[in-house]
């Protein structure tokens, strides 16, 4: 490439870099991963909870599942740093799936204990 093209490319590069937001430090993601690992360990621990605590297990597990889901989606998949349009597309699909399949299970009386 000629000099002018190099300069132009470098400017474009700058622009694109800024467009992207700064590249976060690796350590940030490692921290998130450690939190996720801890939550996973907590989840697994419910296997050994005593019978008396089992009724707490289900809501606890669902909450932990949701925490992990949204942490991976918003941090690892970058949704919280990116345009809201991406979040809209993905979470619409997610919301539709949850709605439709919950109604589906309701009609099968799945939630009657």
């Amino acid at each position, binding site marked *: 490439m000629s000099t002018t093209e190099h300069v132009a490319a470098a400017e474009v590069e700058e622009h694109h870099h800024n467009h992207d937001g700064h590249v976060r430090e690796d350590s940030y993601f490692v921290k998130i991963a450690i939190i996720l690992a801890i939550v996973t360990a907590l989840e697994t621990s419910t296997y050994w909870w005593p019978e008396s605590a089992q009724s707490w297990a289900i809501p606890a597990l669902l909450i932990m599942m949701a925490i992990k889901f949204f942490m991976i989606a918003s941090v690892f998949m970058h949704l919280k740093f990116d345009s809201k*349009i991406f979040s809209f597309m993905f979470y*619409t*699909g997610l919301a*539709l*799936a949850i*709605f*439709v399949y919950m*109604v*589906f299970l*309701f*009609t*099968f*009386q799945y939630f009657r204990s």
Partner: protein
Amino acid sequence: MAIIERPSAVPATVGGAAAPELVTPSRALGVFARPVSSTGWKSWLFTVDHKKLGIMYGAVSLFFFLVGGIEALLIRLQLAAPDNTVLSAGLYNEMFTMHATTMVFLFVMPMAAAFANYFLPLQIGARDVAFPRINALGFWLFLFGGIFLNTSWFLGGAADGGWFMYSPNSSALFSPSHGIDFWVLGLQITGIASLVGAINLIVTVLNMRAPGMKLMQMPVFTWMVLVVQFLLLFAMPVITVALFLLSFQRNFGATFFDVNQGADPLLWQHLFWIFGHPEVYIIILPSFGIISEVLPTFARKPLFGYKFVVFSGAAIGFVGWGVWAHHMFASGLGPVSVAVFSVATMLIAIPTGVKIVNWTLTLWGGKLLFSTAMLFSIGVIVLFTIGGLSGVTHAVAPSDTQQTDTYHIVAHFHYVIVGGAVMGLFAGFYFWWPKMFGQMLDERLGKWNFWLMFFGVNLTFAPMHILGMQGQPRRMVVWPEKLTGDGFFDLAFWNKVASVGSFVIALGVLLFVINIFVTAKRKVKAPLDPWDARTLEWITASPPKEHNFDRIPTVHALDEFFHRKYEEVDTEDGPRLVKVKTAEEILAEEEANADHHIHLPSPSYWPIVLALALPIIAYGVIFNLLLSVVGTALVILAIFGWCLEPSVADDSDYDPPAGGDSTKELATLG
């Protein structure tokens, strides 16, 4: 016969120079090189041009329309008289299954895709879609999937479980032939086309609009197609799951629908209708979009309540996800579910009613021109309303308990599908034919086409309301003499009327086909703007040049094209619309200011190769798994080829022109 115009060899850089001599490829069969033909059959086989793909979608859909129509006529022949013997029971089951499957999946959906493919990029001022190779893949998957599905007729019998394929009837025990396997796998193949097409068009609409075109300045057809793509995006995976479960049961012994193992037959029904209800909005919304373009054009007024029409389309798409179990009112859901779904279904009549009101108010006070396209559009309003009214009676669960699975339902959905969706597509044909082919379909034949179809639809399906209320069930191969009834409720009489009506529709369709041939033979060129239209697709040649727009238009308003032609001028009688420019002048201005270095996406082998691999896998599942292995290998090869091929063909892939003249331009497109 020149139905399809040969593509012109327009060079990439426009500016009035004479079209260069064509060059031909020498090495185009190299595995990772890209094809280079711009004329001939190769230019169609490897094309990624949305207009060519749209025409191919349309031609193939039309063929399947005729196939599905013949299947319908055979059904009506069988039902024309009591205890009839035109079709055996087994063949009858195949006939109604394939009639519906063909009409829904191989005609209405792909014909809407044809219009969407051709006109969406033009309406938003783009040169093509976001992912042209994926667009091509979608077409070939449709074609090969549709052919695959229909080879079942010759390979042991077609599917016979009804188009919604309820279990346990769909299991191998009750349907031992391969027909249902062909149905399942064929729909999986065409389903991939719908899904990737949806992703493609959504990205196109969001990302490739002309400068200045805000979302609320897009034509209504584009908006309706956008809503449809979101419906497809989220509904297709659900039927994919259902189809996998059924094929795993039939082919690999899974127990999903095996009642002996404790399976619940409603599992299939729910999964199917969670897809199936959005599906009917997928069927109707494109036609709603088409008539929303036609009505204002021929009323010489802007669409009344543009915002309401757009939002109600989105609302229909959204609320449509909450009503699916109204197809299951008699299945034993229980009173709570039935009540909830009943109310939700009634709600969806509201946004639909909003549209009907807005279309009617568009006509009110307009200077109406009753072209064929306009007649079909008004026909949609009338017939869809009738179908919608019977639909409201079905939403009321107690009355539906009597009506379900009778001909009353058949009446409802044929009014909305044939009277609504299909008539809307025909409006599209007559409206947009001059743009696509540079010729206008004959208006006299068109009016006969319309009236025969309109009359035929009413003759065929109105009596079915009576037949249904009198108890004639769906899908019964014969109706017996002893149940014929007396006087007004004579089943024999109304069945005959319906059967005669079906042939009247067929006659109307035949006239359309004849119209195509007559028009093509005539070779009369259409004017550039025959209807004094309003939207961007008309600021192009007829048919449009390969790159669509010489200069990408900058958009300032809704109905941009109309506003370039007309200005409001104050006169002593008040403000008047005065034509300040003709379409020809506007187009000439665009040509004079053409963009330089227009680049178009290059054609590619891999879409058709990848599409071919999938039916091979499918035949393997049915007959011999070795074939599936071969097909899978071809898929992997095709995907790698796709990802690794260069963006454009190497310059050296082109032969120099025969005369060896180095001043000749390479006929490359990008």
